[in-house]
């Protein structure tokens, strides 16, 4: 197995005396495209917050790129597309170019200005997600799927080695979801970016991901898509905490 990009050991997290995460041992190997699934309230977003250092575990240790999270400084190695990205104020007059440029703000650093190389980087990231045509349009005027691409470009512009996406396809129509996964696969295979995707969309995701993890307060399954497909209704009911009927469909 490739060296781990994220490694979590014996993680517990409680919020207001309520156990949210319990005994999580989790490894994300370099080069993986991992889908993280589980029911609402199962702790998926909390797990992401712990990885991003936005909150601290009650117990256990987290290592990012082989460095304890407490000492980790290279945050620009991690790109993040939040669940809330799409709920930005649609009236905010920012062009696609301006939004993507935000991804470089921290990397360029305080008291420094964008230079020519940064500008070409921004345009390259916009091109990578297929949005060049709209570079100088206000982002609020684009469709949900296009906006999501813009936020991925913002995460990509700082050349991250790991991209974390928290339910990015919510509110995006089927055709665009498909294109979206194609884009993620391309980033994973050709740009060698490790991906961690939190999603509800288990159907499409299993066709693209290399690893799948199921989380409901504790980690119930961690394997490849083939192993995941062999899970029975009984196994999934255990993950979701209620009876699950599997319905298969073509897409």
């Amino acid at each position: 197995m490739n060296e781990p990009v994220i490694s979590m050991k014996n993680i517990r997290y409680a919020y207001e005396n309520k156990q949210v995460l319990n005994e999580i041992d989790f490894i994300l190997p370099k080069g993986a495209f991992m889908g993280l699934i589980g029911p609402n309230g199962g702790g998926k977003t909390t797990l992401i917050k712990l990885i991003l250092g936005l909150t601290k575990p009650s117990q256990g240790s987290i290592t990012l790129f082989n460095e304890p999270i407490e000492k980790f400084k290279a945050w620009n190695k991690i790109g993040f597309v939040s669940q809330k990205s799409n709920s930005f104020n649609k009236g905010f007059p920012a062009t696609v170019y301006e939004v993507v440029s935000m991804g470089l703000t921290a990397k360029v650093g305080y008291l420094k200005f964008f230079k020519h190389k940064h500008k070409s980087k921004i345009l390259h990231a916009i091109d990578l997600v297929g949005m060049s045509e709209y570079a100088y349009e206000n982002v609020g005027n684009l469709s949900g799927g296009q906006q999501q691409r813009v936020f991925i470009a913002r995460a990509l512009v700082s050349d991250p080695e790991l991209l974390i996406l928290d339910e990015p396809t919510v509110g995006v129509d089927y055709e665009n979801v498909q294109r979206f996964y194609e884009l993620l696969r391309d980033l994973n295979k050709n740009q060698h970016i490790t991906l961690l995707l939190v999603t509800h969309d288990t159907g499409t995701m299993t066709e693209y991901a290399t690893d799948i993890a199921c989380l409901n307060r504790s980690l119930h399954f961690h394997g490849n898509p083939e192993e995941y497909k062999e899970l029975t209704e009984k196994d999934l009911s255990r993950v979701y905490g209620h009876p699950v009927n599997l319905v298969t469909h073509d897409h």
Partner: protein
Amino acid sequence: MLADFLEFDFLRNTFLTGLLIGVIAPLLGTFIVVRRLSLIADALSHVTLAGIAFGLFVEKKFAITFITPLYSGMFFSVMGSIFIEKLRSVYKSYQEIAIPIILSGGVGLSVIFIALADGFNTELFNYLFGSVSAVSRNDFLSILGISVFIAIIITLFYKELFTLSFDEEHARVSGIHAKRIHFLFIVLTALVIAASIRIVGVLLVSALMTLPVAASMRLAKGFKQMMLLSIVFGELAVIIGLITGYYLSIPPGGTIVMVSIIILLLSISLKRFRYRTIKVRDNNEH
């Protein structure tokens, strides 16, 4: 029409100060509006009034001249901004409650200091609604210094302020010190308010920070364009407002704000007209 403003010293000070605040008020206002903090400007302007009343009080009662109302107003405004931030962190789920607390505190203090300074006088009236004749050479130089300081800080921290305004969570995740940048921003707001009060007055200062932005928001493509357009609208409002205020003997706060409102209405109509033209063209093409 401009001849008087160029000829008389006191009018020249007013005019030049007006040109400065026509830039800095909409400049800061752009960030205030997109962050939905327009009412903070109102709260801070009332705290500034308390500072001005305090300045007038010590000037009158103790004959202390080094604490001018401009400086005491600025001091109160900055202290008010720090208090707002403290209150916003105490009431995390109800952050807007900080605004009425600071606003009423400001008015309460103002009433006390005004009474202690033996009530209302012309100078206080000028601070409420602005004045074309109240700007001294020293006021102008202080406001020039503040304006240059604000322009430099905004240029240096533009990308951080912009990132923070658009998406606070993303800013924090990417490693920007959101709290420090926000604090810097709120202190700058307090300084702009204190600097603008001489011309537009306490009661109307927030209008100069928000109306030009509201007008340009309808027309601009992108944030930088909105910022530039807001400054153009702000300058137009200040120049037309000062000249008409002077010739009609009306406090310039009133005329500047009314010109801003006319610009806003024009921008709304222009946007509607543009939208309708595009719709008609599209219908014809189909």
